[in-house]
């Protein structure tokens, strides 16, 4: 008999050891991602927990009754203790499993978890304490009492987890939240809105019976009186009003109201409180009295109306898909996103044409229930998608813009009972394909821009199925003529061509024609050469070009200047020094065939002001030249003018020079846009091994110029000889 008892106790004892070890391990590792059935096993926790609670409570009277300590009594208590510890441990294990679902307040959970595990450990310890405390009754009773108390505190947090923090607090509970009355002109802001919010969110703790902080919000008078910290509000001054200040504190602040864990005020509600306080906290203010343009109006409408919207809009009749499933479907080419962090609804978008296949859509049937939006825009998706689309029973938005669908299969969408918007822009869908859509009850908008539907047909659709907005989008006005952009050259910045190199013009509008001249005259839609292929030039050439196309106004002319590389000077020497800031690469700048731009004068330009521009060029194998061309910057705003005179001298050497050509370029008569001006100097034809050029800058800027009487700059970036 005795043996059997001991064996029983030993078996339970070993089981207990094992389970306790398991409990310690499980409490220390993350249980997220354990199988669902294990989590569901955790649902037994609230049932089982009654066993250890009653057993532990019973320990106390048992210990008091069995004070003799006979063998029989001790055995009974030993049994009892073993079972208590066993139940406590199993309950704790179930609790850990159920905590894995993550749906509880982490703060409370941590407290409950560790206190209850301690209870289980302590009840296990009681088995041994009982064995060694044979004659120490006080020690025994206090150990038992401690366990009971620990258990109570632990279970209190457990109760708060499931039943709310105030579950065990006493006093009247206002569980019924008050509904807002629909807004009318006679709606009284205080009574009908402010007071309702206070009742729903504050009055539970601030009422006549339970005046936390000595504040009672049940009547206006007591509300105004405030609590122990002071008046709840100061009429007309929301910033100094205590109840608003408290609401605005961060949620972790001890003084934040409503306290953490309670239903919080929304930002609209706080806004309303502020505005109402600012408007003299008038208890009689009606909705009618609020100015039409006042934001407060729309806020009140929002507060009153969202109550009902919140319930319907955010609640979908399906649960979240598992994170793993979503994760496994997500890729750079198929993105699946929840609408927001709380929502079970998903949006699926496809990216990169070359990566699209119908299989990518088909695989989404794993989350078919949760998908409310599919975006296939620009994907090479054809009619094959429709047989898969019908699986998405909760689909609300379907974007097929720019896909390859024919429209013939649109009837498959009949099974998408919740479909509200269909995007068919840029597809070959025609009017006849759309009749089926017109009959779908939930559809509200259909986008048809650039489809086969004409604007007349769209009008007809809008009349026939007027519950739907058929959007045809922008239709250009035939009569409106727009001006084309001017033509450009393929290599716009390259202004210097090698002999034989071709000029290539272009215009971005398909079908536009380019007409151009090279004689300085203005081309128009009739005159000028029609550009058909790249052409060559000789010497310095100015091209004026316009773009022409049917249904468009001709463009403004664009002008391109091209320099042909001429006789190449072997070296150049700057005689007068350019200004420090504008020295570019020194003398080589003039013959290196690198052009500057008229607005960036720091690069590739030599700039002169205090002295004239004066440079010499040397030819080892001179050929006959007839022209010198200087490429000159023209930027009146930056005081950069063409030179007033250019003098070219030539000869066999530096010491035998004579003037072989001069020119006085035309001067600007008002501010003008920056540009590059080629200035040609006609020379007495001849062979000149040595040429010297001086460009004299304008010495007195004209009176119309802001810098009148000052010297002008002259900028040269390149000199050519032909």
């Amino acid at each position, binding site marked *: 008999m005795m043996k059997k008892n001991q064996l029983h106790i030993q078996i339970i004892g070993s089981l207990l050891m094992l389970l306790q070890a398991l409990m*310690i391990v499980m409490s*220390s*590792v993350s249980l997220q991602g354990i199988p669902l059935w294990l989590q569901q096993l955790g649902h037994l926790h609230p049932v089982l927990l009654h066993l250890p609670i009653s057993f532990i409570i019973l320990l106390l009277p048992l210990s008091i009754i069995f004070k003799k300590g006979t063998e029989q009594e001790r055995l009974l208590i030993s049994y009892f203790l073993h079972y208590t510890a066993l139940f406590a441990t199993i309950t704790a294990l179930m609790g850990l499993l159920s905590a894995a679902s993550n749906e509880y307040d982490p703060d409370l959970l*941590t407290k409950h978890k*560790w206190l209850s595990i301690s209870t289980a450990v302590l009840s296990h310890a009681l088995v041994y304490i009982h064995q060694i405390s044979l004659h120490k009754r006080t020690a025994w009773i206090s150990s038992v009492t401690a366990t009971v108390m620990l258990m109570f505190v632990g279970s209190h947090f457990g109760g708060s987890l499931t039943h709310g923090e105030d579950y065990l607090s006493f006093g009247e509970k206002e569980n019924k939240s008050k509904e807002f009355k629909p807004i009318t002109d006679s709606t009284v802001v205080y009574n009908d809105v402010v007071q309702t919010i206070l009742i729903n969110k504050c009055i539970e703790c601030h009422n006549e019976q339970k005046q936390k902080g000595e504040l009672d919000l049940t009547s206006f008078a007591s509300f105004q009186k405030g609590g122990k910290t002071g008046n709840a509000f100061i009429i007309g001054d929301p910033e100094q009003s205590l109840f608003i200040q408290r609401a605005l504190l*961060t*949620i*972790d602040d001890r003084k934040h109201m409503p306290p953490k864990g309670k239903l919080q005020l929304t*930002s*609209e509600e706080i*806004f309303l409180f502020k505005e109402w306080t600012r408007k003299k906290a008038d208890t009689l203010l009606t909705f009618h009295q609020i100015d039409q*343009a006042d*934001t407060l109006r*729309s*806020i009140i409408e*929002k507060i009153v109306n969202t109550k009902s919207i919140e319930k319907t*809009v*955010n609640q979908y009749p399906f649960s979240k898909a598992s994170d793993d499933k979503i994760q496994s479907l997500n890729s*750079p*080419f198929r*993105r699946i*996103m*929840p*609408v*927001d*962090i*709380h*929502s079970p609804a998903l949006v699926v*978008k496809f*990216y*990169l*044409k070359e*990566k699209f296949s119908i299989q990518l859509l088909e695989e989404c049937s794993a989350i078919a229930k949760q998908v409310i939006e599919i975006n296939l*825009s*620009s994907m090479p998706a054809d009619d094959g998608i429709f047989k898969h689309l019908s699986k998405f029973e909760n689909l609300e938005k379907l*974007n097929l*813009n720019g896909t390859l669908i024919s429209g013939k299969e649109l009837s498959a969408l009949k099974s998408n009972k919740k479909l509200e*918007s269909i*995007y068919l*822009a*840029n597809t070959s869908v025609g009017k006849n394909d759309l009749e089926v859509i017109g009959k779908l009850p939930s559809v509200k*908008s259909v*986008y048809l*821009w*650039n489809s086969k539907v004409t604007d007349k047909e769209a009008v007809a659709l809008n009349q026939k199925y007027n519950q739907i907005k058929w*959007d045809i*989008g*922008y*239709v*250009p006005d035939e009569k*409106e003529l*727009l*001006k*084309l*952009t001017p033509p*450009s050259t393929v290599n716009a910045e390259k202004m210097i061509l090698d002999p034989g190199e071709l000029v290539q013009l272009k215009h*971005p*509008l*398909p079908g536009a024609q380019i007409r151009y001249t090279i004689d300085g005259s203005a081309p128009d839609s009739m005159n000028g050469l029609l550009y058909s292929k790249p052409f060559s030039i000789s010497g310095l050439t100015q091209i004026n070009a316009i773009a022409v196309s049917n249904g*468009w106004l001709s463009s403004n002319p664009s002008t391109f200047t091209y320099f042909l590389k001429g006789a190449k000077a072997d070296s150049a020497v700057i005689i007068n020094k350019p200004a420090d800031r504008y020295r570019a690469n020194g003398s080589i700048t003039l013959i290196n065939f690198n052009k500057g731009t008229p607005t960036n004068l720091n690069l590739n330009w030599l700039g002169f002001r205090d002295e004239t521009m004066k440079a010499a060029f040397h030819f080892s194998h001179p050929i006959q030249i007839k022209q010198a061309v200087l490429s000159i910057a023209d930027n009146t705003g930056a005081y950069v003018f063409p030179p007033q005179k250019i003098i070219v001298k030539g000869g066999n050497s530096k010491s035998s020079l004579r003037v072989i050509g001069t020119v006085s370029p035309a001067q600007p008569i008002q501010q003008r846009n920056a540009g590059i001006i080629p200035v040609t100097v006609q020379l007495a034809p001849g062979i000149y091994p040595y040429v010297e050029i001086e460009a004299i800058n304008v010495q007195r800027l004209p009176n119309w110029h802001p810098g009148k009487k000052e010297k002008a700059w002259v900028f040269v970036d390149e000199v050519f000889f032909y």
Partner: protein
Amino acid sequence: MEQQEKEFRLNVTRRHFLTKAGLGLGGAALGGLLFKDQFMGVDSQAAMQLGVAQFAPKAKRIIYLFQNGAPSQLETFDHKPLLNKMHGEELPASIRMGQRLTGMTSNQEKFPLVGSTFNFAQYGQSGAWVSELFPHMASIVDDLCFIKTMHTEAINHDPALTFFQTGAQQGNRPSMGAWMSYGLGSENSNLPSYCVLLSRGRGNGQGVYSKLWTNGFLDSVHQGVVFSSGEDPVLYLNNPDGHDKQSRRDMLDMLAQFNASSFENIGDPEIKTRIQQYEMSYRMQSAVPELTDFSKESNTTIKLYGPDCLVPGTYAANCLLARKLSESGVRFVQLYHQGWDTHGNLEGDMRMQAEDVDRASAGLIKDLKQRGLLDETLVIWGGEFGRTNYCQGKLTKDSYGRDHHPKCFSLWMAGGGTKPGTVYGETDEFGYNIAKDPVSVHDFHATVLHLMGINHEQLTYKHLGRRYRLTDIAGEVVQGVIA
């Protein structure tokens, strides 16, 4: 390398160490687990979970048409007939109330009021006032939501722009687009989530700088990527001559291995960023050409945005590209159009600027609308501050200019959950002060974040010992502009 390692070690802070130590010991020591929360440095502040909206967003993407240089509110949307009536009269001191002036007008002896030279009319059901400069915008006012009472703290371009883009004037904070990318992540991982497009009008211009699209203290993946206007909008995206796609792939795989091993050794998070960037650029090789090829645009589209849209680098081309990027899931497309700084010759400059932006801005709205995308795309049009109601320089018969004015200016928003056909706020009849419903730049940021499904108080990043937000310690959502 040695230097970098040294720097990295210096960057390992006590907190960093404890965090790592907490994690490492956690598996072993029950004691550590009991106080796990303390060791893991879990933020007690209710910070938002990144990568997804906190509540159902109204807008999923933003296109910000920034009018750089500050277009005058008095020549665009804020109609002030009193200024025409009092043309040439002195600005009453009771209106100016000692408001500080820029260095450009502080020496001016007189402040003659100047009425707009452009005619105004009311349009649409909302009856919003629009000047003759913007006939196309006028045709869509019922889709627009005007805010007439923006005000800012800065009075010069650089700080004002920086303030608008980053929520602070100093230029060391992340910009709006970077915050969006950080908070909401990217929709399309084949493209950057924050793209920047630049254009320059013919008016008096002010520069833009890369600090305006900086990631600040956020991870550098959130930095804005500038598309250039030439033949290759994204530089260095093409494979070098003689390399095909496969050899590029092999190279990247090898490089990723090297990077991964150096990350293991050093642990610098920027290495991870770099690996991600390479992968994204590889996919961008396919994604970008699809978007930047304008050769197949229909005649209708070209007429919608205006023929300029075919010329790379123009505002119109950028609007069209912005629509394509946005449609492809780019979270934030930031345009800057320069040239609105009308200190003098206002009439001529404004005409040229308006000509460049009017058709394309309105075209963008219409285009988004006809594709069903306007509901989920927030478009913003506006500058960094307003312009004075008095003349800068001498008021002559045929010319005037306006100086910077931070106390009130207008912008408009469209789509993305804003209330269409709305005019929010009122300025006084001098167009100098705000009469009703002021909206600060912080309020504006809070509102934009709200539309994107983010509580601006919860999108935070801890840096140098404190938490930062786009709105820092201010900002209230402007409910009146939300549908």
